[in-house]
């Protein structure tokens, strides 16, 4: 058997399943995902977030409860909040525009890879949730769950544009 046949190709390729990321990778992934979600959230203009909330709220309600007093008051308050925040939001909107139209500093061409997150310095958002047990995945190497030993591969602090 001098040549690779279909069968052998298949077997060799299947062995690529053993190429796995470094230990701790999958455990850390969800954490990174949440941090990214929070970053993205901060980039949204406030009025848009409130609009989404309102839509979600309405989506989950049934029509009858919409005609109730508390719902009506809530609707008025939301409108007032949106309007006043929109006025307050103007410098922020300018910032968002500046971020998007600024020079391509955060997108420097680099064969090593680029970062696309462009979040300004942020206050932290703490989502206090009870501890959840993580599903065992066939590809992780855990017996009992050890703590996550912290050492990120990139610093959290960064600026997306040159401004002061």
């Amino acid at each position, binding site marked *: *058997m001098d040549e*690779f046949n*279909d069968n052998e*190709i298949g077997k060799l390729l299947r*062995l690529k399943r053993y190429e796995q990321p470094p230990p701790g990778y999958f455990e850390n992934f*969800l954490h990174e995902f949440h941090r990214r979600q929070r970053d993205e959230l901060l980039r949204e203009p406030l009025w848009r977030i409130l609009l989404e909330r309102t839509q979600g709220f309405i989506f989950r309600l049934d029509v009858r409860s919409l005609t109730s007093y508390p719902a009506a008051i809530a609707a008025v308050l939301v409108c007032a909040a949106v309007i006043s925040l929109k006025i307050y939001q103007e410098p922020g909107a300018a910032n968002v525009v500046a971020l998007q139209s600024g020079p391509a500093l955060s997108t420097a061409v680099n*064969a090593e890879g680029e970062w696309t997150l462009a979040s300004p310095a942020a206050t932290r958002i703490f989502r206090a949730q009870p501890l*959840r047990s993580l599903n065992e995945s066939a590809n992780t190497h855990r017996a009992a769950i050890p703590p996550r030993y912290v050492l990120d591969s990139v610093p959290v602090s960064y600026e997306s544009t040159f401004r002061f």
Partner: protein
Amino acid sequence: MEQPKTDEDQQLVARTQSGDAAAFDQLVIKYTPRLYGLVYNMTSNHEDTNDLLQDIFSKAYKAIRGFRGKSSFYTWIHSIAVNMTLNFLKKRGRRFHLSLDDVDTSIQNDKEFLELTATSSPVREADLSELQRRLNEAMMKLSDEHRAVVTMFHIQGMPHSEISKILRVSEGTVRSRLFYANRQLQNYLDEFRKNPVG
């Protein structure tokens, strides 16, 4: 690799759609290893894979309210993953470098690995890491679409029917792409076997 139970996914999707973010976390935990394999074997680059996975789940989270359950969540998220990866590869073009993950030592207990190293001369003669490199290089020589089907069928173990749903092509197309890709890989690896050095 078998397909996951769809009722569990359905429940998690329903919970996510009604605002339970923790349910989406469960989906992330469940699908990350699978999708990692898919994206990594298409890109052969660990860092790009990590970025893409973040984008894929981010997009899925934003779009999940519009998910009507016409296909399974499995198919849906694999679709997103394959399409985003293909778009990325198109933009990346030929300018890439391999950033390969290490081979887990448990490979030494794999039945097929033991068979291959015992019987097949091309494998026995080659050092495993050299073979890994050659295989990855051969994979990168395939077109992105061909690499996608090879990854899904051979590495991820997905059936033709599933691949055709994800790529939105007929099963016949899937089979013919696999056939062609196999031939290509054989040719590249034969070259290696004939010229093992360099």
